């Protein structure tokens, strides 16, 4: 009974949030800019045609970087706007749990990003037309990309719960996402290894997206990589719940 109620609440909040995206220019601006940036980086920076390889590696390697900016922009309104408009008081006095609200909001934003991601399908068609790419890496690439979007999103929704200002939420969340991207890069680990104990270096580099996304893009879906993304999401949403439950006003 409680699970059914919860599911109903999550569905109601999900529907409202997704309607909120598509009912405003946010959705269309996001999708258009996302697709344009994808095309620009893949074709002009990575020189997709000149490389002469019928795979999507050059396409997927940009995803984290673009998501780093765009996903916080999608997430920043989720709580901050409710705070600013006072509707937080409304939604938190409905017969719903904080977890229902967080899940409804998170899933709505994630599905929205999923839709934007899906709209990159012409890339797949192009590659399939030009050659015969391995389907494994393509499917895994999309899964990995979707998961990293989810992880960034969980960071964004968490920072959104701290503040009524969407700008602050956006900036803090971009910085945190940048940390997750950079944590695994050699320059960062080298900088750390000079003075930090080895366990800290390992911890920081394993927190980074890089090692996980590389293996997924190769077409290997390792359980540990999935666990990595889902534990980031879980941790961030959990932190979000604590922030909301302990807010002062």
């Amino acid at each position, binding site marked *: 009974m409680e699970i059914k109620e919860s599911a109903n609440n999550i569905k109601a909040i999900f529907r409202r949030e997704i309607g909120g995206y598509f009912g405003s220019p946010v959705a269309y601006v996001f999708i258009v800019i996302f697709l344009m940036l994808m095309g620009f980086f893949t074709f002009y920076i990575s020189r997709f045609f000149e490389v002469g390889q019928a795979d999507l590696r050059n396409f997927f390697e940009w995803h984290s970087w673009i998501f780093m900016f765009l996903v916080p922009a999608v997430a920043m309104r989720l709580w901050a706007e409710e705070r600013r408009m*006072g509707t937080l*008081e409304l939604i938190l006095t409905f*017969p719903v749990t904080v977890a229902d609200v967080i899940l409804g909001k998170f899933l709505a934003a994630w599905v929205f990003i999923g839709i934007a991601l899906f709209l990159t399908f012409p890339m797949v068609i192009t590659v399939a037309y030009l050659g015969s790419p391995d389907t494994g890496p393509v499917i895994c690439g999309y899964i990995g990309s979707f998961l990293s979007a989810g992880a960034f999103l969980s960071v964004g929704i968490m920072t959104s719960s701290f503040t009524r200002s969407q700008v602050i939420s956006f900036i803090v969340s971009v910085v945190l996402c940048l940390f997750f991207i950079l944590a695994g890069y050699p320059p960062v680990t080298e900088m750390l290894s000079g003075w930090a104990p080895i366990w800290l270096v390992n911890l920081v580099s394993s927190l980074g997206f890089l090692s996980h996304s590389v293996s997924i893009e190769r077409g290997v879906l390792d359980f540990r990589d999935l666990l990595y993304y889902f534990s980031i999401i879980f941790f961030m949403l959990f932190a979000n719940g604590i922030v909301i439950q302990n807010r002062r006003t």
Partner: protein
Amino acid sequence: MIEVKNLTKYFGAKKAVDNISFTVEKGEILGFLGPNAAGKSTTMRMITGFIPPSDGTAVIGGADILTDAVAARKKIGYLPENAPVYPDMTVYGYLDFCAEVRGFSGENRKKKVEEALEKCFLNEVKFQTISTLSKGFKQRVCFAQSIIHDPEYLILDEPTDGLDPNQKHEVRLLIRKMSADKAIILSTHILDEMDAVCSRAIIIAKGRIVADETPFNLRTRSSLHGAVSLTLPPTDTEKFISCIRGIKGVKEVRIIEKEADTLKVRIYPENAYTPIVNGVVTALSDHHYEIKTIFVEQGRLDEVFRELTV
């Protein structure tokens, strides 16, 4: 029944609500009065579970807001201060969302939304985006949200704020109509409103309850209660005052206004519960004074309010 038990709230070191307890039964409309920042909204927010109390709790129809929050909130309809709404939704979409969260589905949900639209006179703006509506409409949209599930307990934070006099009247009628089978708490700082709607009034000041009575009894606290106001044609005031002083039970006579063609006086009784009006009328007619108007004062709420809260 809503039982509020020792609710206390600290914001930092500041005590916003100080050990407030009361109960509201079904059929009652409790007016919650107080100056701004007296703790009205904070108390209501604790009763609805929006902010956790520092101490104490509220029990809504048997469900404790701290330990059984979802069950308690199901029984409550809540209109928060400033009537928050989602500006980018249509009126219908907003109410549909609220009904969905309240667990209604299908035809039943549609019916609930239609009923709420009807009750709050929102049919004309049904498909309008909320951000395009005036303050009064927004207020009613949010009010519609609070009654959509026909709750047993209604908590309304300044329900008529921002409405014009006609709309105020409608909303008050609606509240009174619903009160038969509901327990209603409404906060206001409009004294007339409390007088017109509430069966009981709690006045709070600086986070404490300073009065818990019917509006009528509150009035009797006024120094004006039972006083007799008179207007007469101009006359010799000295003689008049000594005449009144002779009446049994009269404490004091005050000249309110003295003009060329009228004299206004107010006569205060020694004891508010022993009427003096008969004695006054007899004495005046015995001395052949002409009375233009006569009025027995009920007491003024604003005076009582000031006395209790300043």
